């Protein structure tokens, strides 16, 4: 092992310890409290020091990911699924939700690395943490739309606005309703459902 890789390992271990610490503290807050009833203020407070404007999911920074994974749908923010989910998605591109999204091995490896590094279990964002908490540790859902956090947040959105709506078609098309999803913004206030307008609770 060269000195450099050794250094990297040590750094990795420190980062990992940091992540464990962070997730433990998250667990501590949520103790006894349903994840979806969380007070927004508390989160924003706790996160203020990390990412500045942290109620938003970090924007996508990787060029290969942006090009390859936005051809058929908008590029989903990496922070909306855990690492284990992204690995399953990336290892099954030939049969990708009934579609063929094969890549050459090099591009595939680049994108996988990017997704791993920015997955929900790697970033301190409130949506990421809520999604993570709604997935059982032994599960690796392939869809954001199948996580119970997602289902809970969208339970009041009727089918006629989604599958019955030619401009939406499926919940997977985040950008058709979340008008600023490509900037990592998913707040209720920015929701505009095509043909129905603003979302009023």
């Amino acid at each position, binding site marked *: 092992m060269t000195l450099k890789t050794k250094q990297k390992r040590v750094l990795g271990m420190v980062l990992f310890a940091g992540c464990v610490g962070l997730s433990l503290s998250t667990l501590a807050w949520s103790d006894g409290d349903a994840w979806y009833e969380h007070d927004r203020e508390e989160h924003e407070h706790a996160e203020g020091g990390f990412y500045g404007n942290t109620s938003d999911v970090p924007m996508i920074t990787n060029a290969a990911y942006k090009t390859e994974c936005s051809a*058929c*749908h908008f590029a989903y923010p990496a922070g909306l699924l855990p690492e284990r989910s992204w690995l399953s998605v990336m290892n099954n591109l030939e049969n990708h939700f*009934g579609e*063929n999204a094969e890549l*050459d091995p090099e591009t595939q490896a680049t994108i996988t690395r990017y997704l791993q590094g920015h997955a929900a279990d790697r970033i301190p964002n409130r949506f990421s943490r809520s999604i993570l908490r709604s997935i059982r540790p032994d599960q690796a859902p392939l869809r954001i739309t199948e996580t119970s956090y997602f289902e809970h947040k969208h339970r009041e959105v009727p089918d006629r606005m989604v599958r019955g709506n030619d401009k*939406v*078609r499926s919940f997977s098309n985040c950008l058709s309703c979340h008008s600023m999803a490509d900037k990592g913004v998913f707040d209720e206030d920015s929701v505009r459902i095509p043909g129905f307008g603003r979302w009023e609770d």
Partner: protein
Amino acid sequence: MKKYLFVAALMLGATGENISDLTAAEPGKQLWTQMHMQKKLGKQVSCASCHTADLKQAGEHLRTGKRIEPMALSVNPERLTDPAKVEKWFRRNCKWTWGRECTAQEKQQIMAMMKAS
């Protein structure tokens, strides 16, 4: 004089290419709209299902609704400029739409149609 000959040769060359493009474009059109059964979807599909039959128009991914820029080079000069991209999408889309890869000749005919549109 030499200069004129050269220009004349160029013009001939250019029209020659156009003629062969136009004749290849016809079979391309048929391939483009020919329906095939997509088993996973349970529906008949063609290249036009996502790209539309009028190559000058923008298409729409038939499942996600995402906009796909026009395929005609006359309105979208970026088409066919990146060989790796072209190959990648021929492989994916032919397999998905037709259930098999396109032959070299079929690809030629389709590209000729894109250039002529």
